[in-house]
């Protein structure tokens, strides 16, 4: 399945609704099938990457575990929208996924247009 270039567009913040989590689960499952998607965190989706998340008291698992699994599944092209970070006052050093480089993009439209398939979460 490697022939098809796929992008997962992640636009939701973590915890408030299930889309962030279910999106990452779909991404990991696709990668396990050798359809390795790239990821673009946009809008409130950039909040998924914020460090210091501790959701134990709201009885949820940390989403950062799912993010840390990305490189283990061969997902290494991870983009974050620079404009979305600025709008939310988030600096580059607040967003890291261990073991993988998160690359800032400015022209998200050009990035998206280059893929065969885009998943929206």
């Amino acid at each position: 399945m490697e022939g098809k270039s796929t992008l997962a567009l992640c636009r939701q913040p973590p915890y408030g609704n299930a889309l962030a989590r279910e999106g990452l689960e779909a991404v990991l499952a696709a990668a396990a099938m050798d359809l390795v998607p790239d990821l673009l965190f946009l809008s409130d989706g950039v909040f998924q990457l914020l460090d210091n998340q501790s959701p134990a008291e709201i009885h949820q698992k940390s989403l950062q575990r799912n993010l840390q699994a990305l490189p283990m599944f061969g997902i290494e092209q991870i983009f974050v929208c620079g404009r979305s970070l600025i709008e939310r006052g988030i600096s580059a050093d607040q967003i890291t996924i261990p073991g993988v480089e998160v690359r800032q993009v400015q022209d998200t439209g050009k990035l998206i247009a280059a893929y065969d398939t885009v998943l929206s979460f």
Partner: protein
Amino acid sequence: MTLHIVSKSPYGCNALTECLATFAEGDVLLLIEDGVYALTDHKWEAAPAGSVYCLRADAEARGIAIPEKVEGIDDTRWVELCTRHNPIVSWYK
């Protein structure tokens, strides 16, 4: 050339704004469901002339008039738009 499908009201949700911020040359925009409320505003005019479509059934359901510069389409044309563009990106939340 991406087909962007927006289905939420631009007053309640940032889907349209974010979509327009990621518009690339040659992209087109289709407004469906509550996305047709964008036609009561001028935000969609940020998209290049001739690149904006809306589902006529969704506009009529809501009593929203379709401006001259926007093409109201039926389901058949919707499918056709999807065959002519790729990828297809849904902005639904």
